[in-house]
């Protein structure tokens, strides 16, 4: 942490962090809505991961996850509960990236093709994607979320319009 400049001290970095927050928020809002508006397609994709065969669990994941992404996306865009939202994104992204990686390995083994030639709809809301590109994207999203979790990106937050910072109370 000591090597990292503290939030608030570098306006340039703060601006980049706010833009990152908006980018993450917008991305999750868009990806969440695309799935929430067609939950049956998302349900079929979730089933392909073979995480569970129990209908209630399967339906629960497919029904709630897209709206949860929308929820986090809106909070990030508005700047409310930024660190909590970033933590939620991390909690979704890390295991999701792992299961996508595992599924890509299974497809690679089945088709006998190079790993980076594996292309499938991972249920991310962007249709079919090449796995290597998806893993890089998710890696970046994880880094961005971790950055926000460290306290960056809190400029232009609606939270401060709703509640005065404690120091001013």
């Amino acid at each position, binding site marked *: 942490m000591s090597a990292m400049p503290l939030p608030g001290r570098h306006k340039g970095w703060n601006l980049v962090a706010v833009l990152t927050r908006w980018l993450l928020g917008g991305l999750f809002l868009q990806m969440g809505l695309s799935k*929430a508006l067609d939950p*049956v397609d998302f*349900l079929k994709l979730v089933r392909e991961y073979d995480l569970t065969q129990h*209908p209630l669990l399967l339906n*629960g994941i497919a*029904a709630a996850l897209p709206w*949860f992404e929308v929820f986090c996306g809106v909070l990030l865009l508005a700047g409310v509960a930024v660190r909590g939202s970033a933590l939620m994104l991390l909690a979704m992204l890390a295991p999701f990236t792992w299961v996508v990686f595992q599924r890509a390995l299974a497809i690679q083994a*089945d088709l006998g093709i190079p790993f980076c030639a594996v292309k499938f*709809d991972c249920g991310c809301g962007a249709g079919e994607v090449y796995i290597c590109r998806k893993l890089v994207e998710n890696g970046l999203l994880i880094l961005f979320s971790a950055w926000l979790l460290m306290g960056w990106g809190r400029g232009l937050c609606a939270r401060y319009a709703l509640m005065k910072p404690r120091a001013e109370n």
Partner: protein
Amino acid sequence: MAIVGAAIAFAANAVSPRGLVLTRNYFPKAVTVAGPAPAALPAELGPAGTNAVAVAPPQPVVASLDAESLQRADIDLAAALFRDPRYQSELVVFIDARDEEQYREGHVPGAYQFDHYRPEKQLATVLHVCQLAEQIVVYCTGGDCEDSEFAALALIGVGIPKERFFVYVGGMSEWAAHGLPFEVGERNSGNIGNGEP
């Protein structure tokens, strides 16, 4: 925050007209068949479905149908049933198990749409037709698509005898690739074409 988010997410699903019914089993299989994960074709072969003619039905789909004791129809049988005089009197019926958008893009002429994920709109009509039919051909996109199997199982579950059903595994992609006629838009729209919709 996670609890609040989850509560909002489930509430949004409940009020959404496209929301899922949490307690419903959308994949009514009696038997789970192990097999390779369904996957897109390699990039050099293009998007899934475009090479359906050259590709045999995926083994998991075939094995699953066999495990459910559902009869399979190949392109020859499906085409023969389509040309059967009984098709005009609805003693032979085709059921399209895809969603409305896909159905409107092109379906077997005269086929009824039955999206088993959202059966509310079509169930009464399809049920009535199936009760009167002698043979029922159910199809979806083809390839690794399982919706035709689920639709057949859903209709069997509401009392249609299993022996009437044929699952056309090649589906709409194979049908169109063989230059067989397809109908665009609503059922009996009269907008008939041949080849790829």
